[in-house]
């Protein structure tokens, strides 16, 4: 992908993430959150719920691993010992847009972890993942007025799935990534910084947690910098597929929830490249150090530089080829500050 101007990215991609997180215009019907133990998706889900509350969106949580309804969600659907068809039924029953309440509200459906579903139904041939997910976005009951539903699905990347029963079928994870309209991969900011620091020195980037493959280590995260707040936050790697088919790739930084009030409407997500820790500003004092210290002003003002560039040097004149002896003259346009001296400046 060609590098795009930073200010262009700043305007367009910040608008895009704002639209995606606030579920405006149903920009992304199916968002896939890829998280890991090193950076769980729960802060991002809370951010989704917070924004949904601000814009009065109905929130349904389909819980595969959550026990209690978190604050801010309107409907809580437990999936324990339920078939996918039952889940769909219960979810669509959880929200009935009544015509009396005016225009139908938008709806956010969150699946807190899809792994259990994928690994238990993998053997069940009647289970069809695309139609299961599709049923939430486009309810089967056409009588219900069309409500814009967005589906946010979390997938734990580090939980090994079961191998597909049919070797000629793609894995369920491939199907998920194929279906998703946006994919957000979550990274821990401190890990991103550590990896960047290593790359800047041409070292092998460090790995954390399970990837360390150390005996007995599940989680590598240790908040050594806890309290300073310096490296808190989540890095979101967004891949958004536009309707036109064009893809957008961008890296964002979501600050921790404690940094802003819950009612903040202004966008809090920034580009990762704009972060001062990730992309420190070029040190400008380096130029000053190189100049020798003296009482003379050795620099040039803008005007002096312009004038100097305007000077036609003798060898340009010599290239006209007017004949031997011709050319090579020094051509000088008098400036107003020049003091014309008849004797000296005779041409």
């Amino acid at each position, binding site marked *: 992908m060609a590098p795009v101007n930073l200010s262009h990215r700043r305007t367009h991609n910040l608008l895009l993430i704002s639209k995606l997180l606030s579920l405006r215009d149903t920009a992304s019907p199916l968002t896939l959150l890829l*998280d890991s*133990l090193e950076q*769980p998706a*729960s*802060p991002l889900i*809370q951010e989704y719920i917070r924004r949904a509350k601000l814009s009065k969106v109905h929130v349904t949580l389909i819980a595969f*691993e*959550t*026990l*209690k309804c*978190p*604050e801010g969600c309107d409907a809580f659907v437990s999936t*324990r*010992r339920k078939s996918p068809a039952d889940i769909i039924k219960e979810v669509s029953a959880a929200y009935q847009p009544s015509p009396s309440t005016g225009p139908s509200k938008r709806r956010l459906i969150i699946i807190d*972890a899809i*792994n*259990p579903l994928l*690994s*238990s139904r993998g053997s069940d041939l009647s289970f069809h993942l695309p139609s299961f997910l599709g049923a939430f976005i486009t309810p089967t009951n056409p009588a219900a007025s069309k409500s814009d539903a967005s589906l946010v699905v979390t997938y*734990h*990347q*580090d*939980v*090994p*799935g*079961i*191998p597909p029963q049919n070797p000629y079928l793609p894995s369920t994870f491939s199907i998920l990534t194929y279906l998703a309209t946006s994919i957000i991969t979550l990274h821990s900011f401190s890990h991103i910084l550590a990896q960047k620091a290593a790359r800047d020195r041409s070292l092998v980037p460090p790995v954390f947690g*399970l*990837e360390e*493959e*150390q*005996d*007995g*280590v*599940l*989680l*590598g*995260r*240790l*908040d050594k910098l*806890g309290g300073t707040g310096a490296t808190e936050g989540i890095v979101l790697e967004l891949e958004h597929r536009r309707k036109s088919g064009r893809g957008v790739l961008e890296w964002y930084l979501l600050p*921790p*929830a404690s940094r802003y009030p819950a009612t903040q409407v202004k966008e809090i997500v920034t580009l990762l490249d704009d972060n001062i820790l990730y992309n420190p500003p070029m040190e400008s004092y380096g130029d000053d150090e190189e100049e020798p210290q003296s009482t003379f002003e050795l620099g040039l003002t803008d005007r002096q530089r312009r004038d100097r560039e305007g000077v036609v040097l003798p060898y340009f004149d010599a290239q006209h080829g007017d004949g031997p002896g011709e050319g090579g003259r020094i051509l000088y346009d008098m400036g107003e500050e020049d003091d014309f001296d008849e004797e000296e400046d005779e041409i």
Partner: protein
Amino acid sequence: MPSQPPLPPLLAPYLSSQPESSLTLISSILGATSNWLVLRLLYSALSTSTNQTFGLDEHDGSKKKVVLVSFLRGWEFWKVEAKRLGLDLARLADKKQFAFVDGLSELFSAPQSANAAPTTSSPTGIPPRTSLPLRGPPGPVPGRGPAIAPAISASTSSVARGPATSEPGIAKKLHFSGRGTAALDIMEKDIIAVIEQVKASGDSSEEVLLIIDQPDFLLAATGTSMGIGATEMSEWVTGLQLNVGATVLTLAADSPLIHNASVSGNQGATPVEGEHASFAIGLAHRARSVMQLRTLETGAARDVSGVLRISRGGGISSGADTLDEKELLYYIQRDGGVKVFGRGES
């Protein structure tokens, strides 16, 4: 060496506070078992003399009730080890403040010496895991005969034989019968019945702490051929979690069980490895905190038994609930006392 307080001061805040409906995961490896930590947890929840031991009054007066479900260690082991800390589990069981659910001795409906496991000092999953799947479904299995004979002859030992309910201290013995979720449901019902008994007695406002010791054994011993996989086990844990205040779970996290099936090295992982990794990592995603025990990377040391890393799990609510992440060293002394200290301290 001076004797250590039963509850190491550095660990006390982590052991005494398990918020409502939270899950704590303790992962262990072969060289660093979790018994001592579970015992400290029991002590922290059940002991009345906590404030004497380290000066601070961490106990807010509301003692907890505890239900311990153990799959790898018998009643005898827990009783003896707790006694060394000054905790009389048998008496607490009589008072219905504590209940022990035995998932070891008769899980597969086979009378077996219950004190076989406690005598070994490192009873993590590895040895049973290799031998137990051979045991197969309940019922007469060829090759069982010789194993029963010494067990019966040992019936004169301290562990009482005979009907399960008559054994003192053991509230319930779990049996695995049938297959798939139906078998898990029966066990779930048994455990919930015990939880209800404990809840009903005494002050019913006290919350119940459920400790499940090494349920991964159940997964390894049954497996997908019996219709039990990581998802079914996780649902089983969820079902139990719904009935208690807080839950603590211990699991093996040895490298082959976790990393062989990881995304990078997925080739050739056995079903047990795959299911175990999926179960353990899935639980870590749900847990509020994960306590990871491991040995020193630099090899064995004379005065360090292992490393305890306490991390926030994936299920911590990032709101008011805070948990400091920490990495500590611990040393188990010959008398069973445990010293916990930071790196560079002693």
